[in-house]
């Protein structure tokens, strides 16, 4: 079969500027901006085994980049990452923008899900998208000046000069917060009836974090929902550009703060791809075991709080107690609980402690029966079913169109799990099933997650029985300080040690993407190295971002209690949306 690169070159000829080689070996093509819609439309609809999902859309500010040989001239590069389920492959398209005030056609006409991604690129890079339906800032406040991910934008408060808030500025800021329905694309009237606007959040018990939803209500029926995100934005991507490769790991922990080390996973693997670092088998299995523990922990938080959203009071306490048991194991291994910062480039921070088998075994034995109890209490409760069955439905096609991955995708009946489809870190050697739903409603999303807890237990059990012996960290120069006994003997090692511990490693230039099947969906890190001690661009593609974008679509026509069920069943984390 012809590769996608040659298909595109045959079809579009000059439009395809050139191909680029990347460390992740995804086909990467530079495309003329004028024809990007045609190319994307072709890839989505007309090509054999089409690329149905717009997996990610982001940008790179190229102005300070040193190593770009073989790439066309560009000031800002827009990156489209597509996923084909038929081919089980990613494709990356890049569009060079030369102007200092760049603009490009919006691709919302091809993928509706491009809406938020383009807003994000506009917000953080200042690239304008012509034909975009609602090009407003999305993560930064509407009154923000500058575009933070541009290289010229300061990264620290100390670079910005003292903060001042004169009265005029305060008034301006307050005025910017005034709610005007028109600015949100909301109408005050519907067929002669005056509608009510309800401001749900940023502080509200039912939304799990600092999310604001503007509801347009006809009585209690939802006419429209407009999410306002960005309250939890901490500039995680910008921080990636100033931290060294190693010191960025703790920041990743905090992106999906319920999933702990699962966030380290794609990051360290992407760096390992960039540096061609091989890691020992033992560390691979340790990584899998801890990730699955965190999957259980994260799903337990979801399980309990979801039940609470539906008015059940008890489960959340029981689930948090069980989560405590998971975190006890995590703490014994890593020394920390929610943010263990445990994975390292080239392995993990330390070997497993003595007696870890007993802890894991104890947890598995304790937890297996608990799940049955919870099934009886929640999943088989008739009021719970009445609240969740047939609520917030979307089909597999819609899920793919909107970039939904993880349990939300599998609940529609599509058995796509990246641990099986594109195994990483040795998942191919584990036996586990991919639970799926049928209807893509709130109940099925719950079923899938509950079943995933069981599958995670299976994986952990296999880790327990098959933990390989050997080192827990690679001996690669880039990842691990030289052995102490050698540093005392030859100057080369000593220098290396000095450079490694003071500056950190300089990862050779290149680009790599790596993703994992995280608790909420597919979480990926797209890293660009520029022969430097920190990354040139760190792109974090989180699952919650597209999932939140879908919420308005699946909430229309339902009522406020249903919205709570929908929000709960989508299972997002605000830091995962806003980064």
């Amino acid at each position, binding site marked *: 079969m012809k590769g996608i690169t040659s298909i595109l070159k045959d079809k579009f000829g000059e439009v395809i500027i050139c191909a680029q080689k990347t460390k992740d070996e995804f086909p990467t093509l530079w495309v003329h901006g004028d024809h990007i819609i045609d190319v994307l439309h072709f890839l989505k609809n007309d090509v054999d085994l089409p690329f149905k999902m717009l997996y990610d859309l982001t940008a790179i500010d190229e102005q300070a980049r040193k190593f770009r040989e073989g790439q066309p001239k560009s000031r800002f590069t827009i990156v489209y990452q597509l996923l084909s389920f038929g081919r089980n492959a990613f494709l990356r398209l890049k569009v060079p923008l030369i102007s200092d005030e760049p603009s490009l056609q919006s691709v919302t006409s091809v993928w509706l899900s491009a809406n938020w991604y383009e807003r994000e690129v506009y917000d953080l890079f200042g690239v304008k998208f012509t034909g975009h339906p609602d090009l407003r800032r999305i993560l930064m406040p509407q009154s923000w000046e500058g575009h933070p991910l541009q290289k010229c934008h300061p990264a620290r408060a100390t670079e910005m000069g003292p903060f001042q808030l004169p009265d005029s500025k305060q008034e301006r800021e307050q005025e910017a917060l005034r709610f005007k329905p028109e600015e949100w694309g909301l109408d005050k009237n519907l067929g002669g009836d005056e509608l009510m606007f309800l401001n749900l959040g940023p502080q509200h*018990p*039912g939304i799990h974090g600092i999310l604001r939803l503007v509801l347009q209500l006809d009585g*209690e029926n939802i006419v429209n929902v407009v999410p306002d995100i960005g309250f939890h934005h901490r500039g995680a991507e910008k921080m990636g550009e100033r931290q060294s490769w190693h010191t960025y790991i703790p920041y990743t922990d905090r992106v999906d703060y319920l999933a702990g080390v699962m966030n380290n996973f794609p990051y360290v693997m992407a760096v390992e791809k960039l540096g061609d670092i091989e890691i020992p088998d033992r560390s691979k299995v340790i990584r899998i075991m801890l990730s699955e523990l965190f999957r259980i922990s994260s799903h337990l938080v979801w399980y309990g709080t979801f039940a609470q959203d539906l008015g059940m009071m*008890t489960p959340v306490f029981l689930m948090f107690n069980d989560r405590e048991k998971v975190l006890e194991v995590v703490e014994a291994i890593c020394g920390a609980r929610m943010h263990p910062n445990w994975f390292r480039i080239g392995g993990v921070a330390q070997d497993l402690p003595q007696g870890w088998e007993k802890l894991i075994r104890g947890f598995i034995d304790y937890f297996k029966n608990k799940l049955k109890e919870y099934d009886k209490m929640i999943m088989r409760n008739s009021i719970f079913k009445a*609240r969740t069955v047939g609520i917030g439905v979307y089909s597999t096609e819609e899920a793919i169109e909107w970039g939904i991955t993880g349990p939300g995708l599998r609940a529609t009946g599509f058995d796509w799990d990246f641990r099986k489809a594109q195994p990483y870190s040795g998942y191919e050697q584990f036996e586990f099933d991919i639970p799926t739903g049928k209807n893509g409603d709130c109940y099925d999303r719950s079923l899938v997650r509950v079943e995933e807890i069981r599958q995670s237990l299976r994986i952990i059990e296999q880790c327990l029985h098959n933990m390989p012996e050997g080192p827990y960290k690679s001996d690669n120069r880039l990842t691990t300080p030289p052995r102490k006994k050698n540093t005392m003997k030859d100057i080369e090692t000593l220098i290396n040690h000095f450079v490694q511990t003071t500056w950190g490693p300089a990862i050779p230039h290149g680009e790599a993407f790596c993703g994992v099947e995280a608790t909420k969906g597919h979480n990926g890190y797209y890293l660009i190295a520029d022969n430097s001690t920190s990354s040139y661009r760190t792109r974090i593609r989180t699952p919650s971002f597209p999932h939140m974008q879908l919420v308005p679509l699946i909430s229309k026509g339902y*009522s*406020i209690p249903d919205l709570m069920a929908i929000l709960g069943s989508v299972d997002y984390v605000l830091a995962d949306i806003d980064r």
Partner: protein
Amino acid sequence: MNETLKLTLIAIGILLALLTIAAGLIWVERRMLAAWQDRYGPNRVGPFGILQVVADMIKMFFKEDWIPPFADKSVFILAPAIVMVTILLSFVIIPFAPGILVADINIGLLFFLAMSSLGAYSVVLGGWASNNKYSLLGAVRGAAQMISYEVFMGLSVMGVVIMAGSFNMTDIVLAQKNVWFFIPQFLGFVIFFIAGIAETHRLPFDIPEAESELIAGYHSEYSGMKFGMFFVGEYLGITLISALITTLFFGGWLGFGFLPPVVWFLIKMFAFILFFILLRASLPRPRYDQLMSFGWKILLPLSLLNLLVTGALVLYFT
């Protein structure tokens, strides 16, 4: 003169006892919930944490008595008073034991139904006067829920009235000498119990408050002692419904001899109170429309059927 003094003392005694029970229930509920939820609950203040209630009351009394500037002031103040007054007045008709009751009136049960209808005003007015959208939604839900469930509540006890041949509560208790009414009137008992939960808007029917949706619903804007009145009113409501179930279906003060009548009454009443708390610990909240259709499509026909069958049987046998 002596008679008047005695009645006054009984009334004051009952009032104080009720308020103590309602306040104590706050502690009981928190401890019981905690026991069912694998945690401790309040256990620091006093023995077993029982003085937590006192601490909470002190806190509530000394909190700033804040009225939102956008609220309708007089109605805002009136609303929490209504809930307390109507529920406390309802207790007038409850015979705790022979001789321990405030008013032995021949329209006893009707008086309770009238008072509980008035109680709906506190929710509606409180939510409306708060001038807050969440409160308004809660108030609208509360009004609909309470008014609908009143219908079945009234109908469900009519079987008892037919069998006892009186609205007078003492007569109803005495009519249960041979068999407690929950046996012949089991359907009526179940419906009354469900309607009672809806009436006190406790989980699973706490739809007007619905914390995860409406924050606190109709009393979102209340704080200090005004909130305290809604809060204690809720526990008084539970006590009232439990006392009514005891009186109407479980033979009131009638017992098996070795304990004084009033103790039998209290034992039965507390059993139902605990059941209320257990329900709260175990069930999710249905949606508002599900609650309504459950009421009108299932409970209403059932209670009418119950009324019809009871009436026919009583006519047949007399």
